[in-house]
């Protein structure tokens, strides 16, 4: 019987494929429907931001960070500004720190809406959960538009604070959104927690062991899905996260469904943080004057924040000039991909798609 079988069959998933969330290509070798080998081919969206940054001033580099993880531009802005501030020793006004926290958490909710919606799409749903989650994401993007005029590439944070203070009509909108958000999240839970098909598709699929996850530098919801309570907002608080009371959601099994659950619960925790931040929001200026041509002293700094995708780190090296001597981005999507082959070999092609969806990659951030 052993000589009966299909020969290995190479299938390209991507670069243009409905489930690769961008121009990402996974070259899989199939035995029937089972994956026996997988190879990633990256670089279709490579814009060489790290090189470009070496010819631009620190402030001019902020728009690049919008375009890395274009679904979470605010956290990209925030991480970069924090790293430049650490290198240059710039203090940030308290109101700006609070606004940064609020916008970063709003961005987290928006990004997780997208991640969870497309994840259920990858499981084969006909867009319905995605549309529900887009409803809330739209409102969050409206809040961004109110504040900085842009919805996706916000370019809102500045070195030394934020670009603009929020307008007056922003407060009732965000209060209304925050009031209805917990119900909405419960609605998603009702819709999806008891769905046998979703459970069948994602429970025990793509199980990531905690020791492998740590060894593979996995971070964010993927790491928390394995049951490891690690969150940079708690472990190494930046901005004013140390004044906020929130919990770290962790999964039980490390499978795709756990990652989905962790993201869903993180949305709820983000609402908690935003509510506290809105209560504590002080008055005052939102930016510190910083020279346009910021010249930090020679030195190096590594700053990391908890972006929706995981640990977003910026390694900046300065030689005293107006442009970074070296700017490296530790992008969570890219490094979370380290486990993709580990997870997908042995699965069927359908499960590999679900696993890829649960890792929540963003190609803009992978390729930079």
């Amino acid at each position, binding site marked *: *019987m052993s000589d*009966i079988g*299909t020969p290995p069959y190479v299938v390209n998933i991507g670069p243009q494929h409905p489930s690769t969330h961008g121009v990402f290509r996974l070259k899989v070798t199939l035995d029937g429907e089972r994956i026996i080998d997988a190879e990633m081919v990256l670089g279709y969206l490579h814009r060489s931001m790290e090189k470009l940054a070496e010819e631009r001033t620190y402030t001019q580099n902020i728009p690049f960070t919008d375009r890395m993880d274009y679904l979470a531009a605010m956290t990209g802005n925030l991480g970069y500004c924090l790293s430049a501030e650490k290198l240059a020793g710039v203090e940030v006004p308290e109101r700006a720190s609070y606004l940064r926290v609020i916008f970063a958490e709003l961005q987290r909710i928006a990004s997780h809406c997208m991640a969870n919606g497309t994840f259920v799409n990858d499981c084969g749903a006909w867009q319905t959960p995605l549309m529900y989650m887009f409803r809330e994401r739209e409102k969050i993007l409206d809040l961004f538009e109110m504040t900085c005029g842009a919805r996706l590439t916000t370019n809102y944070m500045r070195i030394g604070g934020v670009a603009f203070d929020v307008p007056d009509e922003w407060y009732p909108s965000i209060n209304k959104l925050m009031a209805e958000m917990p119900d909405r999240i419960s609605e998603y839970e009702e819709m999806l927690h008891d769905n046998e098909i979703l459970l069948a598709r994602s429970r025990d699929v793509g199980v990531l062991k905690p020791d492998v996850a740590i060894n593979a530098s996995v971070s964010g919801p993927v790491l928390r899905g394995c049951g490891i309570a690690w969150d940079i907002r708690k472990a190494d608080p930046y901005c004013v996260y140390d004044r906020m009371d929130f919990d770290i959601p962790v999964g039980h099994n490390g499978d795709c469904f756990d990652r989905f659950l962790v993201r869903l619960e993180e949305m709820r925790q983000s609402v908690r943080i935003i509510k506290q931040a809105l209560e504590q929001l002080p008055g005052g200026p939102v930016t510190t004057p910083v020279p346009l041509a910021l010249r930090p002293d020679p030195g190096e700094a590594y700053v990391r924040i908890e972006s929706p995708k995981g640990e977003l780190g910026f390694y900046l090296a300065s030689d005293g000039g107006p442009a970074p001597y070296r700017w490296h981005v530790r992008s969570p999507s890219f490094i979370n991909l380290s486990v993709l082959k580990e997870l997908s070999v042995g699965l069927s092609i359908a499960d590999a798609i679900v696993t890829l969806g649960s890792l929540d990659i963003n190609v803009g951030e992978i390729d930079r």
Partner: protein
Amino acid sequence: MDDTAVVVAFYVLAAITLISALMVAVVRDLIHAVLFLILSFIGVAGLYITLSADFVAVVQVLIYAGAISVLMIFAVLLTPRSDRDNAAVSYAAPLSVLAGLLGAVIIFVGLDTDWRQVEGDRFGQTAAEIGQALLDPYALPFEVASIVLVVAMIGAIILVRPGNEEEA
């Protein structure tokens, strides 16, 4: 067979059946051969209808065109790609002799049989009659056939059971 329409239908269907049967042997691509075989099956089903055997005709489509051909497609797709050529069969000569002999026997039997005309209602309750026939006069062959099928199924399960590969 007095109806001209039926006669025309018979010749058309017979042509379809025979030509596609010939194509099964002639075409090089095995998948095409299987698809022609299905066309041949459907032609046979049409012939059954001209014989007022509506139940057999529909079952012919359901079982042969729908199920048996699927098994054949599976068999073809599970064969390694290099063997998927209809022409390179080393047994061509002996097999064509065998097929010729078989054809001769069938033609002889066909000519020798005393064919009876169908009487009465064209489309009677053929299904019910077949059911009666299977469970009354032909009960033994029917049961034997089912036992054979069960044995075949058990054999197939044993063959593909996981864990068998280490022994092999």
